[in-house]
Structures are given as structure tokens and as C-alpha cells.
């Protein structure tokens, strides 16, 4: 008997509590009352950072492109990235579209770091155009410098075997799975060994910039291939 009464009362209490909570929530939703001191407003999402490049004359001075070439480059750049800067994901996207059969994201990451000279996480038009200027119009020395910079992931001035292995694996990843003959696990490693044998003169396990440039300048193939893309653009 008592338990029945308690049950009934208990349920009554529960009912009242539910009712009160529901009405409070309703009022809160309707905006009539607010809970905390800092009012709940819509957080303004910062719209995407927009960036405008320096003037045409300055860029012309800093790079080796002509005015017209800069115009063409900028138009293409801005069409693809209307906000004026490229972040890493977009960069990876764009680069991956050129290599549909493999996974270009790792290499794109390294490339992004190479282009993003001020390391602010985004590539602006200036970065882009300066990089291109070196690659397309620079001296062989500058190009080799750039390549060294690319391989040196932590930018400490030395290329270690691990760094090289990472780069190599990234390059081989771009080839994808469907190659003939089939890529084996140790192919990148072997390639790195060959590279180090060639480049590492003093056999200390790292390649410095001087070793690198020396070695490349003495290699016919490499020198020839440096001039390969000169008439791009």
C-alpha cells in the first residue's frame, strides 16, 4: 500500500520535473532567457583569408618573368584559387589531378613546403611566382639549390637517408600500383642507396649542399635535364 503511494508520488514528481525542464528549454530556444553571461551569439566564422599580391612592377623586378607572363600566371592562379592563397589541401588536390593513377599527396606536401618559403602554411601568389621563376628561369645553381631545399625536409642543411627515403617513397607513390615491372618494397630504398653512393663523397651518411651541387654539376644527365623545362611558359 505504501509502495503504491510512493510510486504514485514518485511519478508525480517525475512528471513535474519533466514539465519544468521542457518549458525552460522551450523558453531558451525561443531566446527569451539565456543561461550564461556571455550571450550565445552566432560565432562569426572568419571568412577565408584573402590576399592580394604586390604590384605587378615589384613582381616583375623580383622575378624573371615579363609582365605578360605574370599576367597569364596570375589569371590561372586566381581562377583556381579565387581567394588568392593556396592552402595545403587545395595544393594537394590540384597536384593530384596531374597524377591520377597514384597517390601524389605526400610529394605534394613536400612540394608545398618547398614553395611556402615563409612557412606560414599557405602559398600566396608571390611564393608561387618566385618558385616558378627559379625553376623556369633560374641558373642551374639556383635550381639545384631549390632541389636541395626540397629534399631537405627539416631544412637543417643536410639530407639524411631517412629524408631521402621519404622523398623517394613519395615519388614512387605517385607511380601508383599498376606498374610494370611491379614495384617492390625495397625499390625506393635501393634507389636511395644509389643516390647516396653517388652524392655522398665523404661517406658521412648525409649530403651537404656543396656535395650535392658538385656532384650534380659533374653528372651529364642531370645537367641536361635541368634545362628540360625551360620553354614552359
Amino acid at each position, binding site marked *: 500500500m505504501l509502495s*503504491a*503511494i510512493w*510510486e*504514485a508520488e514518485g*511519478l*508525480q514528481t*517525475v*512528471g*513535474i520535473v*519533466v*514539465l519544468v525542464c521542457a518549458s525552460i528549454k522551450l523558453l531558451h530556444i525561443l531566446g527569451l532567457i539565456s543561461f550564461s553571461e556571455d550571450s550565445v551569439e552566432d560565432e562569426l566564422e572568419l571568412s577565408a583569408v584573402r590576399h592580394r599580391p604586390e604590384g605587378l612592377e615589384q613582381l616583375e623586378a623580383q622575378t624573371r618573368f615579363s609582365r*605578360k607572363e605574370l599576367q*597569364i*600566371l596570375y*589569371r*590561372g*592562379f586566381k*581562377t*583556381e584559387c579565387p581567394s588568392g592563397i593556396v592552402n595545403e589541401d587545395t595544393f594537394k588536390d*590540384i*597536384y593530384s*589531378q*596531374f597524377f*591520377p593513377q597514384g597517390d601524389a599527396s605526400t610529394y605534394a606536401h613536400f*612540394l608545398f613546403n*618547398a614553395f611556402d618559403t615563409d612557412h606560414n602554411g599557405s602559398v600566396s601568389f608571390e611564393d*608561387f611566382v618566385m*618558385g*616558378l621563376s627559379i*625553376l*623556369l628561369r633560374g641558373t642551374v645553381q639556383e*635550381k*639545384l639549390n*631549390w*632541389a636541395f631545399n*626540397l*629534399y631537405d625536409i627539416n631544412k637543417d642543411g643536410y639530407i639524411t637517408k631517412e629524408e*631521402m627515403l621519404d*622523398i*623517394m617513397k613519395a*615519388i614512387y607513390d605517385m607511380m601508383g600500383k599498376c606498374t610494370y615491372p611491379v614495384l617492390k618494397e625495397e625499390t625506393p630504398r635501393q*634507389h636511395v642507396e*644509389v*643516390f647516396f653512393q653517388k652524392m655522398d663523397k665523404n661517406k658521412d651518411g648525409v649530403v651537404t649542399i656543396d656535395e*650535392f651541387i658538385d656532384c*650534380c654539376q659533374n653528372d651529364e*644527365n*642531370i645537367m*641536361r*635535364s*635541368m634545362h*628540360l*623545362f625551360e*620553354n*614552359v*611558359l
Partner: protein
Amino acid sequence: MATGVAAWLPFARAAAIGWMPVANCPMPVAPRDNHKRQDELIILNVSGRRFQTWRNTLDRYPDTLLGSSEKDFFYNEETKEYFFDRDPDAFRSILNFYRTGKLHYPRHECISAYDEELTFFGIIPEVIGDCCYEEYKDRKRENLERLQDDQEENKDMKLPKLNFRETIWRAFENPHTSTMALVFYYVTGFFIAISVITNVVETVPCGSTTNQKDMPCGERYTVAFFCIDTACVMIFTVEYLMRLFAAPSRYRFMRSVMSIIDVMAILPYYIGLVMTNNEDVSGAFVTLRVFRVFRIFKFSRHSQGLRILGYTLKSCASELGFLLFSLTMAIIIFATVMFYAEKGSSSSKFTSIPASFWYTIVTMTTLGYGDMVPKTIAGKIFGSICSLSGVLVIALPVPVIVSNFSRIYHQNQRADKRRAQKKARLARIRIVKSGSANAFLQSKRNGLLNELLELTGTEEDEQKLIKSTSLLESQHHHLLHCLEKTTCYPVCSLQAHEFVDEQMYKQNRLETALQNDPSRSPSICSHDSSVGTCCSHRVKRNAALPSVSVPSTHPIPMHQGPLQELRAIHIQCGDLPSHTTSRSNLNLKTDDSGRINCRGAQITTAIICLPTPSALTPDGDGLHGPPQQRPPPPLGHPAAPSIQTTTSSAGTNIIKVSAL
């Protein structure tokens, strides 16, 4: 490769320098860009509106018209621009596709017009961006449905001859096709109504007899009701058997819903006949009577609205299922809560959870009978929450069902409207077509007349008669004329087939049917023989110029009907006796008659009458369709004995002149 990022290819190539130091093998030679032209602006003139863009932009999609060399076909040398004679509004979205890589579908644009533009410019619709793709697909589907409806109706119009079984089936499916079908349709509808009404009235208490209590009418007038029932069931049985007989696929018919309903409507009666005397199963028999109410579903054959409703419910099955499921969940929850809430109160009707179901359902559907009410405070609180949530839960799926119903209903309305408008449309189209056919015939006459006038050499009449037809028309008419001349019989014996007006054609057929008796010798105009009398023209003698409705007044008795007659120029070659079953003796060398009538001719849309032999059955659409594809008449034809030629047999090279 996505051509949208073609602009970044130079970058990707430049970045390849990063591979060079690690490469083991020598690199391949780079392709040279020989004609290295600076990026230039292209002007696209679309119906006067000039669009300009970089050449590179257009080159992004080389498999479209603008991106390939196909656009060179549209290049205008003088103005140095590409001219397209298309809709400039639709072109905007197409050019934006090149610029942004995404094709958008403008909502205000007609779907088929847009499709045509896309096809013209070589863009596949699949590249439409996600934002607009759904809308595009929806509109396209709607359009297709509409066109399909039209086609189906067209199919109805042209039917081959059906055998008996198919005729009956068609009569059942479309009662409007014949009067008998319509009668049968109404009769069955009437009997369905009668049957339903009797079922209902049977149970009404009919006033007391000597017994004290009221008897239902069914028991009072057993015989009468039994007779009515028998009559109805007989009709239904006959109908069902006929449908079964006529169905193209009996198995499928037997499985269809309507036939099951039919069977269930008549079965109780037969079972009742069999089992009348067995008292044990009379209880079951009474249950069977319930199934008689299914007869009312037979009305769905008669009412389109009912069918639409049924179809809607079928297509909204998922929404209905959701409704049911959510209601069940809510009922269980609230019933449980109410039971425990009301457990404490005395004399509570909420004796168990299933008993509370009834309360919950009644409350959620806002019925509120009041036979079970909560008495405790908690019970009342929860009861009110229950009724509020009931309103919400039921109101949610209903609009989906309603919109489905509305869509299907409007589709049906549209189909009906289209069908109604179709007749008027077809009539108008036929008028236009026959107008053009007449124009052709008339221009032919003009041409012939010109020839004649050249013979007779009158200048001013010629001027009068030359109606200025546009170049297009004259070329078209010349083409049709060539076609006529092509279908000359190889021996070139007058059998050039000619276009004729539809009405004329029908009349001729009628005539040939009527004129089958050979006894009428001079009426050679139409024979039932296989003589290709198409070239024969009746000639009107001595008469005034024919106006459109002048009945034939020539003395030769013929079944003319309101035929318009004209003389026609008729060039025969070969030395066959003229088959022209025209009264050619009247007009053989006729310049004079011709001349008389030619002068000051009124140009009316007169019609050359060509009697067509009934043996050859050209296709029904006599409008301006291809000339009758007749097999060339048999070679022996010139000597066909049934021809009585009253022509003076000079035979060769008879020229008859047509007058207008």
C-alpha cells in the same frame, strides 16, 4: 586530367625539376610548343550579343565545339569573330562552364531548349554541377513523362485490326471506344450500386410484423433481396468471365487486384448457395457476407479518382509505414507511463498496459472519447503531453502523402487536358498541312499554266497568274514535282502519280467504290480495274470556271459528288491508246477550250481530282504524304480490256490543258 587545372600544368612541369637529381635514367625530350602565340581574346558573337574570352579558356575542353577546330566553321572573316545563331541567354551558362568548369542549369530555361543548346555545343549534361543537377534531372524526367503520355495516346489512335478477343478487351479497358462498351460500363456500375444499397438496406429494421421485435428488412423480404442479389451476382459473373476470356494474359489477369476483388464479390453468394442447409457453418456463412462489401471496390474501375487514391497510397507506402511505426512507439511509451501513473488511483480503468493502449490511441488522435480518463495529477500531466505529441506525430507525414497525391492527380489532369486539346490541335495542324499541300498543287498549276501561256503567248495573263511564291516555296514545290515525275511508270505511259488533296482522295475512293458497275460506259473516270487512272483527269467541258463549290454540271452522268474538276495538262508519251479515262474526246487537242478558260482565270485553290483505283490502297494519311506507292501496274495493262476508251485514238502525244 581535369582540364580545369590546365592553367597549373606549367607549374607541375616546373616542379618536376625536383625529380631530376634523383633520376637514374635520362629524361625524354620535351615537346616543343611551336606556334607559341600569346593568349588572345576571341570574340563570340551569339545572335548579336558579343562575348569575349581568352582562347585558352575555350581550349580547356577540347572535345566541345568551342574548344575544338569545329568553331572554325563559324568564323566570319570580315568581322574576325565567331558567329553563332543561337540563343544568347543559354549561351551565357555555356560560356561560364568554360570559365569556371561548372555547368549550371538556369531554372527559367525550358529543359528541351537547354538540352538542344548543350547538344549543339557538344557538352554532355553530366557535367552539370551538383547544385543544379537535381533540378535538371527532375525537369527532364517530367518532360519525358509528358512526351511518353503523348506517344501512348498516339499509339491508341492507330490500331491494327483487332480480332474479337482483343476488341472485347479494349472495350473493357476503355469504355469510350464503342457504344456497346459504354452501355455495359454503365450497366455494371448501376448494378454495383444496387448491390451495395441492398446490402445496406438489408440490415435496416423494417417495422414490426406480428412478432414484437423489429426485423431487419433482409429477413422480412427475403425473397426480394435474394432475387436482387442473384441478378447482381449473375451480371458480375458474366462480366468476370468475359474479362477472363478476353484478357491477353489470363494468368496475369487472375493475379491482378481488380480480379481478386471481383472474385471476392461473387464468391460468397455461390458458397452461400452451396451451404444453405448446413446450420453448423452458418456462422461462417454470415462472416462471408461481410465480403460482399468488397463489391464497392469494383467502383474503382469506374472512378479515376479512386484509382489515383489507391495509387497514391501505394506510392506513399514508406511514409505510411513511418507514420505507423512512430505511432506505435509513442503508443507503447505513453501507455506504459499512464499505466504506472494511474496504478495508484482507485477504480482506475487502466488495468494493464494493453488496456492503456486504447486510451493512448484515442488521446493521440485527439478523439478523446472520455471512457478512460486519468485521475491522478501525474496521469493528467502525462496525458496532456501525450495528446500534444500525438498531434505532432500525425501531422508530420501527412503533407508528404498529400503532395504525392497532388502530383499524381495533377499529372492525370494534365493528361486529360492534353487529350481534350489534342483534337483541336490535330485539326489545326491538318489545316495548315493541307494549306501547304494546296499551295503546292496550285503552284503546279501555275507552272503548267505558264507553260500553256507560253504556247499561246500572252504576256499580261502570265503576269497576272504568276503569284509570287517565295524562293523556298518554289524550290519545295519543284522538289515535289520532281518526285511526282519520278514515279512515272517506266514506259512512261501516263502513269505519273500525283499529289492530291485529302478530301479529293477520299471522295475518289468513295467514288470508285460506288462506281463499280461496268454498265456505265462513258463514265470511265474511275474503274475498279487496276488501271492506273491517276493520270486521268476529268475535264470539265464548257463550263464556267469552277469555283470551289460548284457541283459538276457536265452532262455526262457520273457520280460526281461535289467534285471539283479541272482540266489538267496531261502529257502522254508512248503510243498507247490513252487510258485516260477522262472524257478525253472532249478535250483532245484542245487549245481552244484551254484558252477560253485560261484567260482571266481566277486562281482558286482548286483541286485536281484524281480518281484512284480502289485496288491500290495507299496509306491513310492522304495529306501531302508520299505519293501513293503503287507497284507499277502490270505490263499488260495497256491492253486491259475493261477499259473503254472513248478517246479519239490519236493516242500519241495528246496534250490536254488544264484550266483553272
